[in-house]
Every structure is written in structure tokens, then in C-alpha cells.
């Protein structure tokens, strides 16, 4: 049993080291695009089968966004981003739970000389490169949205508050705190998702090594649930932060 925080490298593509997590990330993308295209080409006015599931997701996400943002136009504008985040994380979390995780892979000798395998399957969310990259992408999007909605001056007013006005120094300190929290978002987004999914995978591996049959099952269900919750939390937080970024400062 070998646990690696970093995703394992499968092969090199030019200068890019292709890891199992990146491989799964691309696989998830392909699956998402194919499934949505299949649903669209077989679209019926009376929904059936997979189309139902997708409509429920689309309707649910859209309804949730409308209730968070209190604005139909804004909800529609950010729907693609939120829905893609949710679907991508959900699928990559669940793909990591497939049986055979960590058992099919390339033969490899580790540093100590033991023969191990590099698994093909590793949830994309269990790779900090993905979670950190996504959180950077999202936080930058949030900042840009705020600036576009309020203007640079309006947006800056959230963080730089004159100490000579009503709440005096308190307002200034709050502004600085807000500024720090914007940067903290990058880390909290990245490590929340990574930590939950990576911990889940370790938990399942450990349970499988302790008791191979039946006992890991409840943990598998737990991880299915956690995978959904983390995807929903990530997407919801992005929606909430987007709404907060477009709301002007109240001074």
C-alpha cells in the first residue's frame, strides 16, 4: 500500500508530464461533452431516461442560482460556470470511487526498490493541481465579475475604507480582512475539495486493506455522498461569492 499526495506520472507528452489525475480529468471532460451531446441529439419534448436526470440537474441548479442571486438574468449568465463546476467535480469524485481504483496501472518500482503499480484511476479532485487551478480560475472570475459590475473604484471600496469616516478604524480593518479573505478563498477552495476527496480515497484504501469484504461498503456510500456534497458546496460557494462580489459596499 502506497499513498502519494501527488498524482502519479503516467507518461510524458512533450514537456507535459501526464498524471493519472490529468488523464481522468480529460476523461471526465470527454464523458461530459459526449453525454450532453447524446442527450441533445435525442432531445424529446416529453423527457425520458437520461434526459430527465439532466433536466432535473439543470432545473435544480438554475432554481438554486436564482434563489441565491435574487436575479434571473444573473443566474442565467453564471449558470454555465456553476453547472460545469458542479458536474465536473461530481463526475471526477465519483469516478475515483469506481472499483479497481488503484489496482489497474503501469508496473513501477518505487524508490526503495519494491514493485508497485501506478494506477490509471485517480480522482481529479484528489490532485492539488486541479483543485488549486480551479480555485484560482474561480477566484479570478469572481474578482473580474465584481470589477465589471461595480467598476474598479466601486469594487476597491469594499477593501480600502477610509479610517476617517463613520465606523472609523473598524471599517478600515474590516476592509483589510476582506482583502485577506479574498486570497484565503483560493486556498480554502483548493484544500477543502482536495482534502475531502483525498481523505475519502485513503479511507477506502485503508478499510479495504483491513477488512476486504462488506465492511468498506458503508464507507463507499459515505464517499458517494461526500463526493456529491463537495461538488455542491464548491458550486454553491462560487455562486454566493459571485453574488457578494457584485453587491456594492454598504458605506
Amino acid at each position, binding site marked *: 500500500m502506497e499513498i502519494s*499526495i501527488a*498524482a502519479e506520472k503516467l507518461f510524458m507528452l512533450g514537456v507535459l508530464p501526464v498524471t493519472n489525475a490529468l488523464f481522468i480529468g*480529460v476523461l471526465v*471532460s470527454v464523458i461530459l461533452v459526449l453525454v450532453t451531446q447524446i442527450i441533445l441529439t435525442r432531445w424529446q419534448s416529453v423527457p425520458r431516461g437520461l434526459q430527465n436526470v439532466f*433536466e432535473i440537474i*439543470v432545473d435544480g441548479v438554475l432554481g438554486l442560482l436564482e434563489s441565491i442571486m435574487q436575479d434571473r438574468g444573473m443566474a442565467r449568465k453564471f449558470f454555465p460556470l456553476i453547472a*460545469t463546476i458542479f458536474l465536473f467535480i461530481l463526475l471526477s469524485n465519483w469516478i475515483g470511487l469506481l472499483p479497481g481504483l488503484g489496482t489497474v496501472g503501469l508496473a513501477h518500482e518505487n524508490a526503495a526498490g519494491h514493485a508497485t503499480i501506478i494506477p490509471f484511476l485517480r480522482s481529479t479532485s484528489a*490532485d*492539488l493541481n*486541479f483543485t488549486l487551478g480551479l480555485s484560482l480560475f474561480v477566484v479570478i472570475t469572481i474578482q473580474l465579475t465584481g470589477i465589471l459590475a461595480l467598476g474598479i473604484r466601486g469594487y476597491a471600496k469594499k477593501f480600502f475604507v477610509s479610517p476617517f469616516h463613520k465606523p472609523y478604524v473598524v471599517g478600515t480593518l474590516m476592509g483589510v480582512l476582506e482583502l485577506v479573505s479574498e486570497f484565503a478563498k483560493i486556498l480554502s477552495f483548493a484544500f477543502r475539495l482536495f482534502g475531502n476527496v483525498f481523505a475519502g480515497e485513503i479511507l477506502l484504501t485503508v478499510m479495504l486493506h483491513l477488512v476486504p469484504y462488506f465492511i468498506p461498503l458503508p464507507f463507499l456510500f459515505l464517499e458517494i455522498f461526500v463526493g456529491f456534497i463537495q461538488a455542491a458546496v464548491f458550486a454553491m460557494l462560487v455562486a454566493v461569492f459571485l453574488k457578494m462580489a457584485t453587491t456594492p459596499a454598504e458605506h
Partner: protein
Amino acid sequence: MEALANLGIDWKLLVAQVVNFAVVLLVLKRFAYQPMLKLLDERTAKIEKGLADAENAGKKLSEIEIQEKAILMEARTEAKRILTETDEAAKKRDAAQIAETEKRVKKILHESELKIAEDQKKMLDEAKRELGETVLLAVEKVLHEKMDATKEKEFIERHVN
């Protein structure tokens, strides 16, 4: 940087993951969400239109029912009116006819009475004349003699009347 490397963070991989996600986002936005939202909107519009149509149809139906009732009522009163009018007209006409018939019958009766009276008189006159002639003949025969015309007439008149 050492800490980042220990966590497995490699900027090349990070960029690759972000590019992968961005591509999926753009592709899904262009080829999945927009058409899907359009289709869902179309269906919502269709359903709303259907519901509105159904409601309108119901409203119209009740309106038509009310109208129908009104028209029926009107038709019924009209029919009643026409019936009574015809009835009255018929009664009036009957009365007139009866009166005329009565008048005609009276006239005919009167005429026939007059005619009968005349005929009687005529017959009586003729009978008188014939009687007179017969008496004259008989007298002639009895008397065997011929009287002259004046004497004869005088004689007849004296004996008959």
C-alpha cells in the same frame, strides 16, 4: 516552492488542468447549456401557452353557454309571442268568416223567401188566368154562344173575382 513540490504541485500540470476545465466549460456552454436552456424555455413557453389556451377555452365555453341560454330564452319568448299572435289572428279571422257566412246565409234566406213569394204570386196569377180561361171555355160551351171580347172580359172578371 519546495513545499508546493512536496504537495505535488507542478505549474505545467496546473495550467493543463485549468485549460482542460476551461475547454469543457466553453464547449458545454456553447453546445450544451445554451441549446438546452433554449429547449427548456421553449417547452415552458409551450406549456404556459397551453395552460392559458385551456383557461381561455373554458372561459369562452362558459360565455358561450350563457349566450346560448340567453338566445334560447329569447327564442322561447319570441316563439310564444308568435304563437299568441297567430292564435289571435286566427280567432279574429274565424270570427270575421263566421260573421260573413251568417250574413250570406241571411241574404240567401231572404232572397229565397222573396223568390218563393214571387213564385207563389206568379203561380196564383197563372192559376187564376187558367181558371178564367177554363171557366170561359166551359161557359162558352154551356152557353154555346160567342161573346165579344169586351163582354167576355167583363164577364170573367165579374165571375172570378
